[in-house]
């Protein structure tokens, strides 16, 4: 098997607030390899969002170790973490977080402005990413003119634009109706087929069905780590 992309060992996160210490993650260990599609499941307060923030270099952890592609994350400073987010990670949020007064193309271009690419190269990357989520025909529309499903597809294109090693999706179907949600999940599965590594946080069992592996959390502990033998596909066509 290939070298692990994510290697987490005894990961612990404590929130300290006015002498009250709340454990969010307690000694979590797992490995994710390139090409996987992993769901992180659990009820509210299980620590799944905290875990995703740590894995996505947005938050720090209290103890344990986390190595990404062989790099020890513990020792990285603010600037290095920002560079990791820029080059290695793409985020998809529940609330899309598109800039309302910008077009689809401008939204997808946003992460490339922090890279050293030329303007031409950026445009090519953005157009490719938009193409990969089948939104080319809406490229010059403002994001406020899009439907919920379309917005999430644009957000996925934005996550892909810098060719990240991994895409983190935080409840990507949470703000969508079930039919639109299915299409988004299909898209994520397609992207996974095309070689993208995807980690999705969800509390919906139906959504997790689309992934190949499910990590279940409760009260900050990893309860189970199981492969999903009957990955759901179907109904969705581009």
């Amino acid at each position, binding site marked *: 098997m290939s070298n692990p992309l994510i290697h987490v060992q005894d990961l612990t996160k404590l929130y300290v607030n006015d002498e009250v210490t709340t454990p969010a993650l307690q000694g979590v260990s797992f490995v994710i390899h390139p090409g996987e599609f992993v769901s992180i499941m659990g009820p509210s307060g299980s620590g799944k969002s905290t875990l995703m923030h740590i894995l996505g270099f947005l*938050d720090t952890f209290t103890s344990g170790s986390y190595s990404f592609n062989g790099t020890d994350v513990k020792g990285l400073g603010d600037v290095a973490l920002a560079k990791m987010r820029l080059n290695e990670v793409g985020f998809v949020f529940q609330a899309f977080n598109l800039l309302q007064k*910008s077009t689809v193309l401008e939204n997808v271009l946003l992460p490339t402005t922090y890279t050293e690419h030329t303007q031409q190269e950026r445009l090519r990357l953005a157009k490719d990413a938009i193409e990969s989520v089948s939104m080319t025909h809406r490229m010059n529309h403002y994001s406020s003119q899009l439907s919920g499903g379309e917005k999430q597809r644009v957000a996925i294109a934005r996550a892909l634009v810098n060719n990240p090693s991994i895409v983190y999706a935080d409840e990507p179907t949470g703000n969508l109706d079930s039919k639109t949600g299915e299409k988004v999940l299909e898209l994520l599965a397609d992207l996974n087929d095309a070689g993208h590594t995807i980690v999705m946080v969800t509390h919906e069992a139906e959504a997790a069905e689309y992934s190949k592996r499910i990590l279940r959390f409760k009260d900050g502990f990893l309860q189970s780590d199981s492969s999903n033998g009957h990955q759901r596909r179907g109904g969705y066509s581009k």
Partner: protein
Amino acid sequence: MKISDIVFTALNSLNRTRSRSLLTILGIVIGIGAVIVMLSIGQGAQGLILNQVADLGSDLIFVEPSSGESEGGPPSPFIEQTVNLDDEIAMERSGLFSSVSPSLYTTVPVIFQESNSFIQVVGTDDEQTSIFPADVALGRNLEKEDVSGNARVVVLGKEIAEDFFGASDPIGQRIKIKDLSFRVVGVFDEQGTRFFQNLDKQVFIPVTTMQNDILGVDYVNYLSAISRSDIETTKEDLAILLRETHDIENPNGLAEKDDFLVSSQTDATKTVGTIGNVLTILLSSIAAISLLVGGIGIMNIMLVSVTERTREIGLRKAVGATNQEVLRQFLIEAILLTMLGGLIGVIGGVLISLAMGWIIQNFFLDTWSVIIPPSAIVLSVVVATAIGLIFGYYPAKSAAKLNPIEALRYE
């Protein structure tokens, strides 16, 4: 992130809040515009006065009374009238001067037939025109005999002659100055203004007639003289001479012991320069206050902008923006705002200065020159940029400090 990207992004977000941005920079626009207009007018006025002073020639010396005896403490409101025609005679005899001429002013009713107006009357002598050159249009100038003979003759300024006599010949006509009858012997050609006095609206009579018949005094307001040699040496020699004439014991040449003041065109230039500098500092302080207020406005709106765009900031950080890059983006937005304000202010200020210059030239003073100091423009742009930098830093810093997770959750 490249600087061009930051500028582009900043312009984009300013464009999205166009009307708010324009309102925000109004304070800067007004502040910078005011600086330009004030500097332009200040320099114009200074230039005008300096030109008039320079026109007098660098060999010109004035002697005027001075409240000499005050030694510290508040200056006396009364200046003793200590300069008189004996001083003039002493100066003429000294050989230091090619011309010496007295001036004594009053404003009294002047009457010709039905015309009756208050007019400034100058008591002087024939040498006045050697010091301040003026052409005689009709008749003759005052003569030595007029002065020595206490003659009741008058030379009119051009406008007075026109007001009183219109097209008819004034020479030989009689006018009444303070109920005394004077014979018109001459009319000066157009002389214009000197020290903001319109010489064409004055009339000139022998200084002795003025002293004895009109005012009943023995002093003059000041003496003007043209120095034959080096002006500084002449001033010193003149001071010694006047101390002798006035019986003043002042071997060390202390100004406060003298009851007279000797000054030259150079001194006047210095005084005007000092007044100009004080004026500039005063106006600059007012402008600085308006720029301060403008800067606070910028800071306020940038803080609002940071709050409004909390989620955008969170997103930018999530996709890889460093704190520095977020800081720079907001700082450059603030700087672009103030620079734009500065630019509009400069353009507006220049236009207003030109318009005011045009109005002054055409309706008030045709010798006014419109000066728009290039240094003021450069200074304005620099100051505007600095304001953006100073007042934009705190909002930008607070944007850069935002926690991306909390920023993304912000409602």
